[in-house]
C-alpha cells in the first residue's frame, strides 16, 4: 500500500505547486512555451491551462483504453460535443451559465450512452473503426453549420455576455481560468481514481484481461464497458467546456479532427497506459512540448537552419509520430513503465510488469467466502 500513498502525496504536492505558479514571476529562458520567458506570464499560464485540459482528457481516455482495453477513436466526438453544445447554448441561444452547463452535461451524457451502446455492439477492431466513424460524422456535422448554429469551418466565437466576469476574456482573466483548468484536472483525476478503485473498475480490468472468464463469473461485460465509455466521454465533454472558456472560440479543425484523436492516443501511450499518473503526465507533456516546438519553429534563427533539419522540426506531429513509434518498440509501458522499471532496478528487487487484477482476486472481492453449511 505504500506506493499509491507516495504517488498521492507527490500528486498533491505537484497540484499545490501548480496552484502557486501564477505568483511566481521568475524568468526562465528558452524552455517556456509562452512568448515571454517569465513563469507567470499570461501566455505561459494559458498554455499550461490547455496542458491541464489535455491531461484530463488523457486521464479519462485511459479508463477506456488502458483499464478496459478498448481502442476507441471517438474521444474527440465527446470533447468537441462539450465545446460546441456549451458554445451554442451560451452564444447562439443566450442561455445563462447554469442552464448552458446543464444542457451540456445532459447532451454529453446522452451522446455517450447512445454512441457507446451502438459502438459496443461490435468488438475489437470493428469497435475502433465505428467510434472513428462517429467522431468523423460529428466533424462533418459541425462543418455543415446546421441552422447557422456552429459557424461551419470558420467556427463560433464564444460570446461572453452571459459569463461571470471572472471567466470571460481569456487575456484579462488568465489566472482564474488557469486555476479553473487545474481544478478541473484535480476533480477529473479524483473521479477517475475512485472509479478505477471501485469494484466496477476491477471488473473492467478483469474483462480486459479475460472477457470469457468474466462472463463465466456471471458478469455481463457490456454494462461495465458502457460505464467506462460513459465516464471517459464525460471527462472529455467537461474538458471541452474548460477548453472553450480558455480558447474563446470553437473551430472544427482544432477540436474535432482525427488527428487530435490520434494525438490523445499518443499522449496516453507516451505517459503509460493503465498506470496511475501516466496518462495525465503524457497529456500535459505532449501539449507542452508541442507548444514549445511551435514557438521554436517560429523564431527567426530557425529559418536559417538547413531544410533537412527545419522541415521535420517545424512539424510537431512528425516528431511525436517518430517518438511514438520508438516508444511502441522500446518503451511499451510509456514513461510510467520506464520509471517503475528503474525504481525496481535501484531497489534491487525484480520488476513485475503491472500485475493485473485477475479473475481470482475479482472473485474474492465480489463473492465473499462461503460459510461451511452452504458448501455442498
Amino acid at each position: 500500500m505504500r506506493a499509491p500513498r507516495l504517488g498521492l502525496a507527490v500528486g498533491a504536492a505537484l497540484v499545490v505547486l501548480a496552484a502557486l505558479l501564477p505568483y511566481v514571476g521568475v524568468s526562465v529562458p528558452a524552455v517556456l512555451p509562452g512568448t515571454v520567458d517569465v513563469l507567470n506570464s499570461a501566455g505561459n499560464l494559458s498554455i499550461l491551462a490547455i496542458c491541464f485540459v489535455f491531461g484530463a482528457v488523457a486521464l479519462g481516455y485511459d479508463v477506456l483504453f488502458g483499464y478496459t482495453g478498448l481502442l476507441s477513436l471517438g474521444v474527440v466526438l465527446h470533447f468537441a460535443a462539450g465545446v460546441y453544445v456549451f458554445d451554442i447554448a451560451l452564444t447562439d441561444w443566450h442561455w445563462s451559465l447554469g442552464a448552458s452547463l446543464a444542457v451540456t452535461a445532459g447532451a454529453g451524457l446522452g451522446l455517450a450512452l447512445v454512441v457507446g451502446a451502438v459502438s459496443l455492439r461490435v468488438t475489437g477492431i470493428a469497435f475502433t473503426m465505428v467510434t472513428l466513424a462517429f467522431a468523423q460524422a460529428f466533424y462533418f456535422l459541425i462543418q455543415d453549420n446546421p441552422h447557422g448554429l456552429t459557424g461551419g469551418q470558420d467556427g463560433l466565437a464564444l460570446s461572453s455576455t452571459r459569463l461571470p466576469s471572472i471567466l470571460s476574456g481569456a487575456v484579462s482573466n488568465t489566472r482564474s481560468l488557469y486555476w479553473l483548468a487545474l481544478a478541473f484536472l484535480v476533480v477529473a483525476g479524483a473521479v477517475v481514481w475512485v472509479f478505477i478503485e471501485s469494484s466496477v473498475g476491477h471488473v473492467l480490468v478483469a474483462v480486459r484481461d479475460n472477457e470469457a472468464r468474466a462472463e463465466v463469473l456471471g458478469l455481463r461485460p457490456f454494462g461495465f464497458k458502457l460505464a467506462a465509455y460513459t465516464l471517459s466521454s464525460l471527462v472529455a465533454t467537461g474538458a471541452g467546456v474548460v477548453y472553450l472558456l480558455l480558447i474563446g472560440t470553437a473551430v472544427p479543425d482544432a477540436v474535432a479532427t482525427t488527428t487530435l484523436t490520434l494525438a490523445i492516443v499518443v499522449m496516453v501511450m507516451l505517459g503509460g497506459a493503465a498506470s496511475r499518473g501516466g496518462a495525465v503526465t503524457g497529456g500535459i507533456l505532449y501539449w507542452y512540448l508541442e507548444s514549445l516546438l511551435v514557438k521554436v519553429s517560429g523564431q527567426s534563427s530557425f529559418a536559417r537552419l538547413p531544410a533537412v533539419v527545419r522541415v521535420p522540426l517545424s512539424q510537431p506531429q512528425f516528431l511525436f509520430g517518430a517518438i511514438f513509434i520508438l516508444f511502441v518498440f522500446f518503451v511499451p509501458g510509456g514513461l510510467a513503465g520506464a520509471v517503475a522499471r528503474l525504481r525496481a532496478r535501484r531497489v534491487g528487487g525484480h520488476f513485475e510488469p503491472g500485475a493485473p487484477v485477475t479473475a481470482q482476486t475479482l472473485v474474492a472481492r465480489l463473492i465473499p467466502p462461503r460459510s461451511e453449511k452452504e458448501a455442498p
Partner: protein
Amino acid sequence: MTTFLSLTFAGLSLGAVYFLAASGLSLIYGLMDILNFAHGMFMTLGAYAGWDLATHLPSNTPSVLTFALEVLAAVVGGALAALLTEVVFIRPLYGKPLSQVLVTIGLDLAVVALLLGGFGANSLSLPVPLWFLEATHAGSVLLPNADFVALVGGVVVLLGLEWFLRRTRFGIVIRAGVENREMVSALGVDVGRAFTLVFVIGGAMAGLAGLLYTAVFTGDLLSPLQGDGLLIFAFIVVVIGGLGSIRGSAIAAVVVGLLQDYANYYGGQHPGFSEIGNLSTVLLLALVLEIRPRGLLGRAT
C-alpha cells in the same frame, strides 16, 4: 432521370475508389488482424509518387501515356511504402496486434506531417490528360470521362484480385490464411511471406486509389491529408462489407459510393445539409451494425 443516371455513374466511380482503398485493408485485417492506419499514408504517397514522376517528364500537354506512367508510379510507390512498412515496422511486432496498430498510427502521423512540411497543405496539381476533363454523351446523359477511368480501374483490379486469390498458389494461401491462420502455418506454409505479400498488394491498390482519387475527385489537387480522409470511408466500407471479405468490400463500396452521391445531390442542396452525403454513410454503418454486426459478407464469430 438523366440527372439520376449521371449521379449513379459518379457514385459507381466513387465506389470503385473506395473498393481499391478498402479491399487491401480488409485483406490485411483478415490475414493479420491489423487495422492498418498507414493505409491512408500509402494512398497519399501513391498520389505524390505519380505527381513526382510527372514533374520529371518533358512538360508537354499531359497525354494518356503520361497518365499511364503516373498510374505505374503510384502503384509502385504504394507497394514500396507498404513493403517497407511491413518489413521494418510490422514484422518485429508479430504476435502483438495492438502494438502493430499503434505503430501504423505513428507512421501515418509522422509521414503526413513530413509531407505537410515539405509540400504545404494544398499547393500541387497532378497533370492529367485534357480528355479527363471532358464528358461523353450517352444519349441525353453526360458522363464525365474521368469517372470512366476510376470505374475501369476498380473493375480491373476486382477481377484481377479475384483471379489471383482463386487461381494462384499464393492467392490460395492468402485465402486459407484469412480463414484460419494457425491451421495454415501448422501445415508448414510460410505465413510470414503471405503477410508481406498481402501488404504489398494492399499498398499497390492503395497507391492506385490515391492517384485515381486525385485525378477524378479533387480537381487534380494533391493534399497530404487526402489519404486520411479517404481512409475513414474505407473503414466504413470494410465494416459494412464484413472484415476479411473482398466481395463484401466490393458490394459495400458500391452501396456507400452511390448513397453518398445521391444524398449529396438530393439532400445537399438544402442549407445546412452540405455534408449530408458524408453523414449518411455513417448512419448506414450504424444501421448495418444494429441489424448485422458482422457486416454483409463477414464471417460469423
